[in-house]
């Protein structure tokens, strides 16, 4: 399937109309990478990668992480873990059964964890102390920061803009292996939870064996991603919680 006809090519038609003789896949990719808005010249691949914190796939450090992630994912799968199917919590009367309007909406902006971590010094806290002595992500602190773990080991982050941008917007068609929200405390990631109305809530029950495996897998992915790739953004007491 050409890129511009795929989930990630949602700007494909627009790309094709800008300069009809140009390769529409290329145009769609440029538009997507530039968050749908091209002002002035098109960004180079390196500019796009840098703006989002993404590594070049051939980068040896990234390759090393791919190996580490592959092992983590294999262990998780051996324990019964799997990619998470999306089930939209909303009903879309104009869509076929199971349709989801969020899937068709790209995020306004997105980064990987490295790209997002560069903005942490300016991000306010999103963690709340709860009456039973636990910490959680404060639903009232907006914007909410959403993350997913993709099948190739990337941790992608976006804001829940307009209360509309959800995890499937970020996934853009990729398989999702974990999803939730980031809890920020004093400019570090204090915790991540597994709150996703599309990927977690309808698929996995709290305190089940599946939930425990997913918690462990997600915690390990964050810890080893940051360690292997040299991304210094996790709090010393970083934790992964259910909700």
């Amino acid at each position, binding site marked *: 399937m050409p890129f511009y006809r795929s989930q990630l090519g949602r700007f494909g038609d627009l790309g094709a109309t800008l300069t009809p003789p140009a390769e529409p896949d290329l145009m769609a990719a440029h538009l997507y990478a530039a968050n749908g808005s091209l002002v002035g010249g098109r960004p180079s691949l390196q500019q796009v990668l840098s703006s989002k914190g993404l590594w070049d796939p051939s980068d040896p450090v990234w390759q090393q992480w791919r190996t580490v992630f592959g092992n983590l994912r294999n262990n998780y799968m051996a324990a019964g873990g799997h990619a998470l199917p999306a089930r939209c919590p*909303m009903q879309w009367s104009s869509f076929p059964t199971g349709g989801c309007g969020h899937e068709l909406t790209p995020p306004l902006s997105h980064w990987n964890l490295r790209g997002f971590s560069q903005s942490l010094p300016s991000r306010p806290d999103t963690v709340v102390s709860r009456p039973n002595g636990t910490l959680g992500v404060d639903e009232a602190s907006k914007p909410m920061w959403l993350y997913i773990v993709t099948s190739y080991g990337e941790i992608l982050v976006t804001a829940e803009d307009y209360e509309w941008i959800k995890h499937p917007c970020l996934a853009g068609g990729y398989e999702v292996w974990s999803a939730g929200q980031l809890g920020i405390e004093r400019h570090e990631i204090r915790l991540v939870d597994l709150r996703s109305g599309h990927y977690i809530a309808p698929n996995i*029950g709290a305190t089940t064996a599946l939930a425990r495996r997913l918690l462990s897998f997600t915690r390990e992915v964050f810890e080893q991603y940051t360690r292997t790739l040299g991304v210094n953004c996790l709090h010393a007491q970083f934790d992964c919680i259910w909700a």
Partner: protein
Amino acid sequence: MIFGGGDMASDYLVALLKNQVVAPHGVVNVRAVLDELTRQHRDPTAELVALFHDPQVHEWRYYALVGLRALAAQGRLTAQDARALLAMTDAMAPYAGVDEYYKSISALAVSPQTAPVLLDFIWERLARKTPEDWRWLAFAAVGALLDQGTAKIPQDLAKALRDEASNELDRHRRVQLEETADAALKAN
């Protein structure tokens, strides 16, 4: 989100909410609104519930619910407030999706004051068999209570859940429901 105006009763709160719109993201920082209400010694719970039920400003209902959940997560709601929150969730879910229930369950489960209200919520789901995903929702509430350790699941409820689990047709879900019901039985 489209942010409109309100009538006299909710004007002040709507003004606060409008003042906390985080422009690039199109969302309202409700935490700042709650902080401001608290600083002024106002009653955020009463004001948020009133805002939710004010038909003149129904476009702000979503943020009234968000605010109330945040108060729940801080342990600032009574059992009666918790019931109001669940009723508001019932009203919001048909528009905003079943996820509203999961969010409310999570918020209520973290406080020993509000967690027992979820036991009634679970019984109601089993009895009324609504909304559409009622069985999974009931067990989500059980799971949240077990996870947070804030309310005991009574033996009769745990047994009813064990019976109900076997009615689930989706095998992937049934295995988890049975596991959750067994955990509830063991926790007694």
